[in-house]
């Protein structure tokens, strides 16, 4: 430890709160260091001078503490009472207003419904009145209905018939294509045979494989 570290630890040593080991090291250092001894002496003097500050003598009045606290609680109680009275008055006024206005508050679905006064008159329910029967109009309507029904049936049949016809045509085209393929096969074979015969006639049977 150097002198700066020692001097920083001196105040704690002076008040007797340095750990034994550290205090022992400090004492050893102080024994051989006049500067640090001087610092310790100056600090001791400062410590002594701190006691020169006078301290006031007080005598508290415990009764006054009780009294002040009681007073505070009384004020608090009065405040609460005033608040309670105000809240009661507001509640009473609200109830009165609700009664006078015939107020209705309810929660309906996701809505808060606030309604006052008498409930509004519901609109008269519209009931289909049986109209007078007109035979001509009825007959015309029935005729239109028949036409529409036939039209719908016709459309349905047309669509179904068209589908069947197209399927049939497709089948036929497929058959024709197969026939053509078959005929083409025959014709190709025949051409090959003719070519082989012609080759044999011109060049003779020496060309092996040509007749095959």
């Amino acid at each position, binding site marked *: 430890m150097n002198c700066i570290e020692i001097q920083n630890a001196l105040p*704690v040593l002076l008040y007797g709160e340095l750990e034994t080991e550290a205090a022992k090291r400090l004492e050893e250092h102080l024994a051989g260091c006049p500067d640090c001894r001087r610092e310790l002496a100056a600090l001791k003097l*400062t410590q002594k001078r701190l006691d020169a*500050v006078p301290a006031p*003598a007080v*005598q508290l009045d415990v009764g006054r503490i009780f009294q002040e606290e009681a007073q505070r609680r009384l004020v608090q109680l009065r405040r609460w009472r005033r608040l309670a009275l105000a809240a009661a008055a507001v509640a009473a006024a609200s109830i009165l207003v609700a009664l006078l206005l015939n107020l209705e508050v309810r929660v309906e679905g996701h809505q808060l419904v606030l309604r006052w006064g008498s409930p509004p008159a519901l609109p008269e329910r519209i009931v289909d009145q049986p109209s007078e029967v007109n035979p001509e109009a009825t007959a015309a309507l029935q005729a239109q209905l028949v036409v529409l029904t036939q039209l719908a049936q016709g459309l349905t049949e047309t669509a179904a018939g068209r589908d069947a016809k197209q399927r049939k045509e497709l089948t036929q085209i497929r058959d024709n294509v197969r026939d053509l393929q078959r005929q083409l096969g025959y014709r190709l074979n025949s051409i090959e045979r003719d070519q082989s015969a012609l080759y044999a006639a011109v060049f003779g049977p020496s060309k092996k494989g040509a007749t095959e």
Partner: protein
Amino acid sequence: MGVVSDAELMRSWQRGDASAFAELVRRWQQPIARFLHHQLGGGDLASDLCQEVFLRVYRAGSTYRAEAAFSTWLYRIAINVARDAARKQRARTARNDPGANSAFALPDVRALPPARSYERQELGEVVGRLLAELPEEQRLVLVLRHYEEVSFEEIARLTRTPASTIKSRFAAALQRLRRRLEELGWGPEEICP
């Protein structure tokens, strides 16, 4: 019959014994007034603030639990009262004199008469003013350790600060006081190494 401990008195008071509270006030009024006086740099506030401390003790009495030492709990309340008072004083000083930096707008100690005599009263005034010059945290540690004899560990607990920090603050405060006293002509008379 032995002396009833502070914690037992608190318990009695919590059960409704008003005389127990009166006994606590009687025991602690002087240390608390002294602490406030030194922490706030003198003045006439100590008595009123001491009353405020015990009023807060009265109000918070039901919250006291014996796990903590009564003195720790009490000094914590006193520290809060002192801080509130200092804050109010600072605000008042700032309103009256916006340029003032010192918490209590103390007169310049260098303007005091030189060390003509070593009268205790004069020295007391100087030291009191030098205490007020210290930063608040340093002053708190010095006042608690020197005047109230609260150990560094206990100060660490009641200020919720590491003990090593408390010791550093204390050393800085004492060394600063020593230097300032010397500057003002209150140096050592005969210090023999």
